[in-house]
């Protein structure tokens, strides 16, 4: 076993591309998460009212309404037909995420993402077992349950427990005991279930995945011929079941990651020392020939994960 198998995940990429280059999308993503949070916090903290409201519903610059489409859907099945403002806001959000990828919300906007990312980072550092791994389809069942409960009780059901809007609202309006819920999710992801909340349970992510299932923005393993099987992308990907079909597909299959579960977080692009992955659109299914400028290095022993 070579010494390389004990390198931390992403070490080779750091050596090749430098630390910044190997964390480009991670840094961009944190910036984006902070940016969206800051937009909401500028008002209550500094009196600069760019955006009012929360992720559930907001008004930007007094003209642009945005509404969470899942909350609207629950409201409708609960028996309330929302006013036009909310419907327009929901439609704008729906169309935007349908184009750029529904789960872009999860990795670039959602305030819970840094929490579960931190839990996963620590999980990897402590080398903990993956723990309880319910099926990836569990979140779809949870989504269906949420809609059924909303219909039966006439209450927007998921908002009674939704940690996303609770944390967001808590930061903007006052948190109460939301920190306990966030701590609970952190501990759950750290000790109980790796990638448990965002990857298996959260119905909001499931819903956004569904809306983005035909989205344009895609990660592609264009340069898959260069893959040296270091497995770093599998280690960092929060939905790593989506990589194989694109990366290990037989010749002639698409290199595009077309699964609606992909959050377009770009970590696979970051940690790949040989630049297998890149962002592209869903119609760009070209595969770089092995003779491309980046030559495939010699295959080497795979790192055990």
């Amino acid at each position, binding site marked *: 076993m070579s010494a390389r198998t004990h390198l931390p995940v992403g070490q080779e990429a750091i050596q090749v591309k430098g630390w910044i280059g190997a964390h480009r999308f991670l840094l961009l993503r944190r910036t984006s998460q902070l940016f969206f949070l800051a937009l909401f916090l500028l008002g209550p903290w500094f009196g600069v009212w760019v955006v009012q409201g929360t992720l559930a519903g907001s008004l930007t610059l007094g003209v642009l309404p945005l509404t969470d489409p899942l909350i609207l859907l629950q409201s409708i099945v609960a028996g309330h037909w929302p006013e036009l403002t909310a419907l327009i806001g929901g439609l704008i959000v729906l169309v935007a995420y349908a184009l750029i990828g529904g789960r872009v919300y999860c990795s670039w906007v959602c305030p819970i993402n840094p929490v579960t990312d931190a839990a996963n980072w620590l999980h990897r550092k402590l080398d903990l077992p993956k723990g309880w791994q319910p099926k990836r389809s569990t979140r779809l069942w949870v989504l269906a349950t949420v809609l059924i409960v909303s219909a039966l009780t006439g209450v927007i*059901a998921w908002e009674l427990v939704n940690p996303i809007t609770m944390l967001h609202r*808590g930061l903007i309006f006052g948190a109460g*005991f939301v920190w306990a819920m966030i701590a609970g999710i952190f501990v759950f992801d750290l000790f109980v279930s790796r990638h448990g909340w965002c990857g298996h349970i959260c119905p909001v992510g499931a819903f956004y995945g569904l809306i983005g299932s035909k989205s344009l923005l895609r990660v592609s393993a264009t340069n898959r011929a260069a893959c040296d099987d270091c497995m770093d992308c599998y280690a960092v990907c929060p939905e790593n079941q989506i990589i194989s079909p694109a990366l290990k597909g037989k010749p002639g299959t698409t290199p595009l990651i077309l699964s609606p579960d992909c959050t377009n977080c770009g970590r696979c692009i970051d940690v790949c020392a040989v630049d297998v992955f890149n962002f592209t659109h869903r119609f760009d299914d070209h595969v770089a020939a092995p003779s491309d400028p980046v030559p495939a290095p010699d295959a080497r022993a795979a790192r055990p994960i």
Partner: protein
Amino acid sequence: MSLTGTPLSPQRRRFLQDSARAAGGCVVAGSLLAWLARDARALPAEALRPPGALPEEAFLSACIRCGLCVRDCPYDTLKLAELGVDAVATGTPYFTARDVPCEMCDDIPCVAACPTGALDPGLDNIDDAKMGVAVLVDQENCLNFLGLRCDVCYRVCPVIDEAITLETAHNDRSGHHAMFIPTVHADRCTGCGMCEKSCVLPEAAIKVLPARLARGSSADHYRKGWEEKEAHGGPLVEGIIDLPDRLPGPGTDNLTTPGGFTPSYDLPGVGQ
């Protein structure tokens, strides 16, 4: 021998097992969620919804908890319920009259801000708002009921002389003063809470309650004879003989009422 497609096929068995497991999990999770949803409907009596709020059950199907009404409230009356701190459904807007009452803005900015209609946009006159009903709950401590002229709740009422009036009554204690009883008229009271906020007592004697607690209801078949008579312009049944009213006398307990009926005979035990 392949069992695929037959009732014994392992794929079929696994599919059924997985589905049953998922459905079972969903029933458990869904029941917990439904229990929370039922719990959320129990709005505490002190928590008042903003003007135009739909009835509580409809409100919880319509409010997306975005907080835009809170932002547009110029008096910081409204707040969003915090998890584990307020007993109100988390994230929904409410106010506590004794802390900050509703100032009843003419343009009702909170209703205008609501994107979903959880605050009914049909409410265009704040005087028609029904956030609750003021009730003078403590007649023993209310200063006006003690015969004093506090009148503060009456003076601060934005719908003065309609939602709260002062009704005079005889002051039995002094024997020759009037009491000015603050009297709420529920059909005009908006439940803004100015009276509760302003009550001078350490704990308000007048409080805004949700209508479900504040009000009784009259039975549908009840008719007030005097109103019917007035509307009819005379007795409802012709030819009724007006019998003389019975005066105090034997069999009643007010034989000694000054100026009352004096019997022509003495009853034992009646001190004269």
